[in-house]
């Protein structure tokens, strides 16, 4: 790279894109710090994702694939790039947009408008499922009842199940989400900090839940958040960029900030963290929780009732603390363990987008 720069300086003319050597560079690529032109950026950005899809055999021809769409930058770029690549490389996929309406006035209603516009712009059929329909509660109502503490637990648990139900409704074979490299690196670090070896071993897999009803995959596993923003910016994609009103941006987690600092110092650190996560020597015999089904709703659960049913029961009985924290004597005995107060301050993205 430095050699390339030196060459163009020697030539005396204006600097040229270090990939095509023809056009003027307009951006410094966050991943490699190469100075490249817009066209080359589109090209490498899309090609990298294509390679990830091909190398990891994410899709088979003829599959129906749902894109978890929140209207945020990650899922919008994912929907755009995936439909583009599907056309260009003839993946033969039937793509759908799947959105969950948590019922957050002033946030989700606006972002859903974005997804509805995307439906028309990209010509992808859209399915919206709401918490109100599925559970009888909107997030606004939940927050009114339980306050601003722990509301992200409800939202996260409900969304996970809602996405699976939506995917089943659309009869899709796979669900793709917009998790990017920064998200995955953050998860690796958090799992180390928390001592969660079981999650550490699976958080870097590109496809998860293959034994479950609907596998999920992350085509952006190696894509930097900054490049996604850059792509959306240059392509002038229509996306919604407000943070959830119940989990405002002022509160960025330690881990995310640390990753941003690392990226500034050494851009490849994000990829290195993911590589470490993939390479960790974790014995395959590590005990995994047994998977069963919820006696109440039939959703996958390692307990008698699934987490969503426990939380819902608490809401309906007016005991919103049920299933939160290390409360004993819940429906599943004392095995309910959720986000501890201590771990909250080190993570980000508890809420706010479909990138659960």
């Amino acid at each position: 790279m430095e050699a390339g720069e030196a060459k163009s300086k020697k030539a005396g003319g204006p600097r040229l894109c270090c990939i095509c050597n023809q056009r003027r560079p307009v951006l410094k690529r966050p991943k490699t710090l190469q100075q490249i032109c817009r066209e080359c950026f589109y090209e490498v950005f899309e090609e990298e994702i294509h390679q990830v899809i091909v190398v990891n055999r994410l899709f088979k021809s003829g599959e129906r694939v749902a894109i978890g769409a929140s209207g945020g930058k990650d899922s919008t770029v994912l929907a755009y790039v995936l439909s583009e690549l599907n056309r260009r490389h003839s993946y033969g996929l039937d793509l759908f947009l799947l959105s969950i309406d948590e019922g957050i006035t002033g946030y989700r209603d606006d972002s859903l408008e974005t997804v509805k516009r995307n439906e028309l712009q990209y010509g992808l059929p859209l399915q919206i499922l709401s918490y109100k329909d599925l559970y009888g509660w909107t997030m606004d109502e939940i927050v009114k009842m339980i306050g601003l503490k722990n509301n992200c637990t409800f939202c996260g648990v409900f969304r996970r199940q809602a996405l699976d139900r939506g995917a089943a409704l659309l009869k899709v074979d796979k669900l793709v989400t917009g998790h990017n490299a920064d998200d995955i690196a953050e998860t690796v670090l958090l799992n180390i900090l928390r001592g969660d070896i079981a999650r550490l071993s699976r958080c870097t897999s590109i496809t998860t839940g293959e034994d479950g009803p609907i596998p999920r995959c992350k085509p952006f596993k190696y894509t930097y958040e900054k490049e996604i923003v850059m792509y959306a910016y240059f392509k002038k994609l229509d996306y919604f960029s407000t943070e959830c009103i119940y989990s405002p941006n002022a509160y960025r987690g330690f881990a995310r900030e640390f990753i941003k600092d690392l990226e500034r110092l050494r851009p490849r650190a994000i990829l290195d963290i993911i590589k470490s996560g993939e390479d960790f020597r974790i014995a395959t015999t590590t005990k995994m929780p047994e998977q069963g089904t919820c006696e109440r709703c039939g959703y996958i659960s390692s307990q008698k009732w699934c987490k969503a049913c426990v939380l819902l029961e608490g809401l309906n009985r007016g005991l919103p603390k049920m299933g939160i924290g290390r409360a004993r004597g819940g429906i599943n005995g004392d095995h309910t363990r959720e986000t501890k107060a201590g771990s909250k301050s080190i993570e980000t993205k508890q809420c706010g987008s479909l990138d659960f």
Partner: protein
Amino acid sequence: MACNSSGCESGCNGREKENGGKTEEVAVAGGVNQESVCVKCKCNEPMVFGDGGSEDGRFCADCFRNNVFGKFRLAVTSHAMITPSDNVLVAFSGGSSSRVALQFVHELQIKALKNYEASRDRSLPVFGVGVAFVDESAAYPSLSTGMVDAITWIRSTVADLSPPEKDLHVVPIESVFGSDSLEARDRFVKLLDSVSDETGKEDLLLHLRMLSLQKVASENGYNRLVLGSCTSRLASHVLTATVKGRGYSLSADIQHVDARWKVPIELPLRDCVWQEITRLCHLDSLKTVELARHPQSGINDLVSSFVALLQEENPSRECTIVRTAAKLTPFYFNKIPETDDSCVPLATQRRLKKFNLKYDGSMTTEAFCPICNGPLNRSDSSDLNTLDGCLETDDVLYAACCSSCRFQILPQDRSSLEHFGSLLPHHMISQAKHQKVNSQAYLRERIKDCLLLDNEEAV
């Protein structure tokens, strides 16, 4: 690898008096002095360090010391780190951690000596102890003025720790480049200068320090090398290794024993946190010396400050980090090699069996990075195989290194690789070449059932 501490002498005494006074007052005022009794022995007055840490004011001085020493002793006995016939070299940087390690090893030795003198048949010899200090002034020229004083101080510290007498070995870090000190120093400086990445430079220095410690140990007949790395230090290492993409080799670095080196490395303070170490130094007035370290702007310092921040938020975070990493599968060399030494007491043999690390035989590796000596993952060493055709030294070096060293230590420009290779210590280069042969043998092993002839020439 021992921690450089910021020392703990400053103002500690004054603070202790203040706090001691306060607790007394509380005790008097409270009537029932439940608050001011050590939670363990329930009779002595607890120590108040006033450092804002957890468990402050819970233990009395004796219980606190016993607790820390107990962790050290458990680590030593359960991993057969020190047996009567051993000759142990303690790496001493002058910082708190290695000072405590030295102190504890010394205490063990005194006890062994007492036992020896008391026993009638004198069958168990007393293990030998030596101390090594690596002089890094060649890397930081600004250190050289303070270095003379530091070495004098270290000499007197080690001399104070006798009997039993301990040999002190002061080695300049450039000694790994050869015996001619001027030429070696010149080569060392050139090598460091040719590494452009700040973090890479720091790490290379660390690897060279380990090489020089190994050299001292093997040249002077030591068979164990004790480092003072504590939990906090290892927690930072877990994160830096993760961030540098060294997830595969990480589990090799954080075990109690690391026998991939000629002289096995032992970390008896692995289970003690930094705070305990500094408190102990303060309690026992163990003096430390701090050589002014250059503030670095690299990954290592960023991670250290991140860990410090986490530790503030949750005092057990460092332990959790190390415990997570300890759940990763260790390597076959993470234990003292089997010996049929009848000197190992029965109790130790039993403990050894109990704590013996189980490792998955199929996960062993043959190849190590010649620079950092980290075990190589299959995906890393596969590059080694694709380069089979070419025999150029520089290509062999590049192929033999782990991806992290390739990025942060080797020159990015492949043409200057040869020059870089010529600067490296002979030990590293020979390992790279050795690896090449090894990988060939490894390949052959894999296809041997399909080969018709036994000798290499057939290929």
